[in-house]
């Protein structure tokens, strides 16, 4: 494995640095992917910008280099970034927003549901708990169905070599 061979060029340092949240329960590679997506949405990152070099991320966060490589591969897979051999990984694309009309329809549906929950006597916390557990369960079942539909073992995208 060769990572970020030192090449003499006047590349700008990356506009962002990663921070990890050990209590989030989100896998480390996914936190990196999400932080890049978040930075893209908020305009901290633009096409052409360089992501932090693997060596730098590893030295500052004390995480496994394979985790950073996995995150960068996932970003490449999503078409958001691409690796340039010997130089690092660079942003290719921006993230489009979710269509506004869809959001409006979804919000209306959610309001109706909340009114129903309210008249059934659920308070804010109870609604939150129900929402969280149902969402978690929903994602689980969807994952299983997706895996079954395509007849492949359950695996995260961008699995290990």
């Amino acid at each position, binding site marked *: *494995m*060769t*990572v*970020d061979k030192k090449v003499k060029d006047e590349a700008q340092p990356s506009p962002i640095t990663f921070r*990890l949240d*050990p209590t989030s*329960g989100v*896998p*480390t590679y996914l936190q990196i992917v999400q932080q890049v997506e978040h930075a893209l949405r908020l305009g901290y990152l633009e096409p052409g910008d360089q992501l932090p070099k*693997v*060596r730098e991320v*590893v*030295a*500052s*966060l*004390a*995480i*496994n*280099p*394979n*985790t950073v490589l996995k995150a960068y591969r996932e970003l490449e897979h999503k078409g958001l970034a691409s690796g340039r051999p010997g130089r690092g990984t660079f942003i290719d694309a921006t993230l489009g927003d979710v269509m506004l009309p869809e959001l409006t329809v979804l919000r209306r549906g959610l309001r109706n549901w909340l009114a129903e929950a309210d008249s059934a006597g659920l308070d804010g916390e109870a609604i939150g708990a129900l929402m969280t*557990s149902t969402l*978690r*369960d929903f994602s*689980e*079942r969807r994952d*299983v169905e997706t*895996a*079954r539909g395509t007849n492949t*073992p*359950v*695996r*995260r995208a961008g*699995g*290990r070599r």
Partner: protein
Amino acid sequence: MSIVETTGLGRRYGSTWALRDADLTLPEGRLIALIGPNGAGKSTLLNMLVGLTEPTTGTITVLGGHPAGSPAALDGIAFVAQDMPLYRNLTVGDMIHLTRNLNVTFDASRARARLAELGISEKQKAGKLSGGQRAQLALSLALARHPRLLVLDEPTAPLDPLARHEFMATVMTAMAEDGISVVLSSHLLAELERVADHLVLVAAGRVRVDGPIGDLLDQHRLITSPTSTVRHLDGCEVIETTSTGAQTHRLVRRTELVAALPADAESRAVGIEELTLGYFRNDTPRPAPVLTGVSR
């Protein structure tokens, strides 16, 4: 290529098996975490890996087929033992000199550069260094041998959080720059989530779990159902069951894709810590909890 391969590996002390029937194939370029309760057989496995202990049964080869303990194996492996063995009355400079003379390959300038980066003076005596500095000295000496495999026995256990972070950052940087493989035994489960690629879990002298961490996390789930309606789950091996009057939690390993869960059961992913503790508790004999309505 695999960095370590064992077949039917076992070691007996007197009439007690410290480790038995271990079949492992550990991948190259990864950090492999070896975990297990005290006395589970971790140190026995590490000692056989670096050639300090002879197996009673089976075989162990390293670095692509060299018997553990052979000259080729010893040249390619660096081992940092738990107590960071250093000569306390020697200065840092003397330790570098000594280690250079005891090894075929030794990059003294690399060790000096790394220690200078950390602000450790060559004039200081090894015995006068802080715990974190001692660990960094032992690690720098090990890495200056340019090993292909670095073996660490509970290296960060006595260190404060900052020293631990810096120690692991040095190990991770060596992986990124030199592509070395690492085998590390540790009790610090929370830390492993960030640093390990591959997990080997030993309990009571046997290998219970062995695999890439991503796959293991995909396979395991915590299933919660109302105790009154708990029933057998198809395609799952139940690792641990905790039951109260109202709720039953089951840590399961999916042996195949889960058949549709009962509508009143919830399923969620688990972290390394939860997964590991489930196996540890399951292997520790203790009074059986009262279970009702569980068919297995």
